[in-house]
């Protein structure tokens, strides 16, 4: 079974530029998550989708970040304009409910450096 796919793997941009990340979840997984992981910290949830609807985006900086999940499968996360503090790894995860819990499986992440 293929895992969560993400692209690009690395991105370097200058501040005030825009950037987009793409995620393809594990087939059949209805729930998709975007996390931001700053160096030395645990992943922080930015947004959670159930199919193509938003479940939780309370920690998404909506003035600069946006995300969509068209057709309930692939998802894109966009930053516009980027700030220096956005330098981080952006992880996508997907999950399936099994046995009363949702096990999340992570993709390899996109490492973003904002100069």
């Amino acid at each position, binding site marked *: 079974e293929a895992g*969560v796919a993400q692209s690009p793997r690395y991105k370097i941009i200058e501040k005030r530029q825009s950037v987009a990340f793409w995620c393809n979840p594990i087939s059949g997984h209805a*729930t998709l*998550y975007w996390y931001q992981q700053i160096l*030395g*910290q*645990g*992943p*922080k*949830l930015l947004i*959670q989708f159930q199919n193509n609807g938003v*479940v*939780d985006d309370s920690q998404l900086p909506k003035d600069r970040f946006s995300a969509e999940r068209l057709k309930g499968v692939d998802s894109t996360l966009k930053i516009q304009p980027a700030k220096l503090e956005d330098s981080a790894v952006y*992880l996508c995860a997907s*999950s399936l*409910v099994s*046995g*009363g*819990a*949702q*096990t*999340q*499986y*992570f*993709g*390899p*992440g996109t490492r973003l450096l904002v100069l």
Partner: protein
Amino acid sequence: QQPVQSPQAVILREGEDAVINCSSSKALYSVHWYRQKHGEAPVFLMILLKGGEQKGHEKISASFNEKKQQSSLYLTASQLSYSGTYFCGTETHGSSNTGKLIFGQGTTLQVKP
């Protein structure tokens, strides 16, 4: 309400044991454990759902004390491959089975030959 992990870092020799703790100030529905190696994605280890439940994965096991809102991860007879950063992700009763996790700051484990 980020869970607190302890210790922050631990260094072991191969074959030694270690315990990593995860504590929350909120009532927990579940605790999820992950291991992340440098530059890689977090890898799922196990989920604990009920108070006092223990699970195992190879020589790694965990317990969940629902009354204390604590979970502990036990690494027995550690191997070099156990090196990495361990994260607990907690799901509170208010978010039960929504999949919403709050991750701790991580515990870095280094196993030396």
